[in-house]
């Protein structure tokens, strides 16, 4: 295959050029559009690097959901005049930052061009322990067994981010619905899209979680797709944003981490201790955790996109 290197070079160049565009763009809107394109190029690069799981996550979260948040923000900021003192940097600051950023780049480049030989890897160890868990996808094994405590803490990070965003509501609006995404007008095309796409997307999302134990896919990727479908339905005004003070919403948000923690604590009864799984039951337990997490991740990602409660959004 001689196309491969050319494709890699093209993707690397395109990603770098888009990054420069995003950073130097005078207008925020152009920068955001550039960033979304940058995310898509990167997910192709991840495919080329043989990381299908990461490519899925990058496309769904790094480019998709992040893009939704940024585009919504840039449209809202567009109407307002800039308030944060936007003083341009002086020539000296620029020179210093070019020098320091260039230094970091040069250091990194020197290191990637002179790799350790043989390159260290944990792949054999990760693969050797997989049969014990009964899952086929090593990434799922890492996220939910070997390094599960990272995943657990990261779920708490998501909850804290949500609470942090909710804390930006005005006191009078606390617990109310967030403002619906989009322009606020009904639109025929959008309604059609909102009716056709979510059923397909929901099937795709659930499929990605389901195969995640053995093939590329998992809770984050599936959850992000489900969240995107929900946002789409909200944009098309086929559903209202939820009243975030309701116990049902809180339950949906918390159930994933709570199930994860509960199964973790149950591990104290086993020789392996916290977050260990009984022999032979690892895979079913991992799937239970994944399903609960997917549900919560979908809800939390959606709510993170929606933002804090706003008063007067109830129809």
């Amino acid at each position, binding site marked *: 295959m001689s196309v491969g290197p050319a494709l890699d070079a093209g993707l690397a160049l395109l990603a770098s050029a888009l990054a420069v565009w995003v950073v130097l763009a005078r207008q925020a809107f152009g920068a955001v559009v550039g960033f979304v394109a940058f995310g898509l190029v990167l997910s192709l690069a991840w495919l080329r690097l043989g990381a299908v799981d990461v490519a899925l996550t990058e496309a769904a979260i790094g480019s998709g959901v992040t893009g939704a948040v940024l585009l919504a923000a840039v449209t809202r900021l567009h109407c307002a005049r800039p308030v944060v003192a936007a003083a341009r940097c002086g020539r000296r600051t620029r020179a210093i930052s070019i020098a320091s950023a260039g230094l970091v780049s040069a250091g990194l480049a020197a290191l990637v061009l002179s790799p350790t030989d043989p390159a260290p890897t944990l792949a054999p160890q990760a693969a050797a322990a997989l049969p014990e868990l009964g899952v086929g996808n090593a990434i799922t094994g890492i996220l939910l067994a070997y390094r599960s405590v990272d995943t657990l803490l990261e779920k708490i990070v998501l909850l804290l981010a949500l609470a942090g965003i*909710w*804390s930006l509501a005005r006191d009078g609006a606390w617990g109310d619905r967030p403002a619906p995404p989009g322009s606020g007008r009904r639109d025929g095309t959008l309604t059609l899209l909102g009716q056709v796409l979510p059923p397909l997307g929901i099937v795709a999302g659930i499929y990605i979680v389901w195969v995640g134990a053995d093939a590329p896919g998992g809770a984050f990727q599936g959850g992000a797709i489900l969240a995107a479908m929900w946002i789409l339905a909200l944009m098309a005004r086929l559903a209202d944003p939820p009243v975030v003070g309701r*116990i049902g919403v809180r339950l949906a948000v918390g159930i994933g981490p*709570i199930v994860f*923690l509960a199964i973790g*604590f149950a591990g104290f009864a086993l020789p*392996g201790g916290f977050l260990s799984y009984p022999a032979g039951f690892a895979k079913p337990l991992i799937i239970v955790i994944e399903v609960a997490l997917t549900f919560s991740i979908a809800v939390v990602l959606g709510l993170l996109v929606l933002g804090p409660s706003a008063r007067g959004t109830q129809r």
Partner: protein
Amino acid sequence: MLTGQASTLPETNSPIGFLLVLAIALPAGGVALSLLLGGRGAQRLAMATMPLGVAVALVVAGNIWRSGRSLTYLVGGWHPPLGIALRADGLSAVMLLTTAVVIGAVCLYARGSFGLPAGADERRAPLVFWIMLMGVWSGLNAVWLAGDLFSLYVALELLTFSAVPLVSLDGSAATLEAALRYLLFALIGSVLYLLGTALLYGGYGTLDLVLLSHVIKPEPTAFIAASLMTAGLLAKTALFPLHLWLPPAHAGAPAGGSALLSALVVKGSFILTVRLWFEAMPSLLHLGTSQLLGALGAAAVLFGSVLALRQARLKLMIAYSTIAQIGYLFFLFPLASAPAEATSMFGDDWNGIAWTGGMMQLVAHATAKAAMFMAAGLIAEALGHDRIAEFAGLGRALPVTMLAFGLGGMSLMGLPPSGGFVAKAMLLVAAMAEGQWWWAVVILVGGLLAAGYMFRVFAPALAAVDVTMRRRVVVPQSRQAVVLALAICAMLLGLMPLRPSQLLEVGRPASVTALTR
């Protein structure tokens, strides 16, 4: 196994190792359940977690002290480098205890400002405050205990995400701007840290701190990784000249939140810097790095103190003093890593004394600063403002609070018999004994400047005036008592003997001891 590849250690779980999990998971579970229960539930959960967390810290510290051995817990039974180990040495024990004491005091104090009466509806600020308090606790304990550089990254993010909303809890434009700037600084800091983590994994195939210390070599990979990680961590610690975000953020949070941020949160990234250099890559510490870090610390002491002197508002003054006090911590790097020939002069373990002194400074500052911020909060509640120039008669109006504030200030100045005195004295003698007198000069000048800004508060507050102070709100005695108790803790630390602490010696990085020989 390939050469240069990290292999597993013969580690097993300590009998009470499960407590290390509880220290992290209890408050983490509190965060998840608080969102679910809402309303008063969050406060109740925090109040229920608090004694449990304090008990866990006490048992862990007691066990390490008695047995003289570190604790280990392999999560899920997986050995590093594939799995993650939680480890508690003497330093972790001290930090667990400090965190528990300060957070316990903040819990009791904050009941006054964020307590909901029975049957009241859920309100925004209280719910968020209690959730973030537990998030801070979980994140800090994870920083003290995690033995894996990537888990530590997640722990740092846990801290960031629970610290930032505390800053903008009042929702004013000024605090929102402070929170945004803090968030951006913290995010760049974490991403630089993560960049170094990637390089280390690429070079050595493990992120476990102990395994890494066995295989790491003084070569470009390690050096570039260490520089990036240190730069990131210093931005999070607000060491001069990366301190710009700190004063508005720490001054903008509600008093209980300021206490958490100033006393504890900035220490998380500091301890991580210490572990990185002293534990993971001690062989790199001699390339002038320790002197550079010390010099930045010295600049922070002088710069922060002078700016603290110029502040018109009490909370900003305390925040600038935090910048100065963080500076002292960085004297640890040159003083605790002195080469053998410099330390054997007087036949004593001067590196060990500097190590204990630096950590004492950390603990003393944590307790003293938390007490001072909470005292400032009470003053602001009572007066409705915190303008230092209008403090006339405050000493008579709020004697207990002012006493607590003063005791905290003594520790900052380094007056005996405070914890700050012991800490600064140990750093001072270590500097003299090791022939690095220039740090001693900065320590003394910093103490004088601290005396200066404390005097600026006390001069009007204790002045004999006829006008009786007009108080807006009567501050309950119980809250003043909590603040005073914390300040007394900072004082009691002054009873420590001036030698390496037995607890801190447990699992003290081999580098510090080996260098002394």
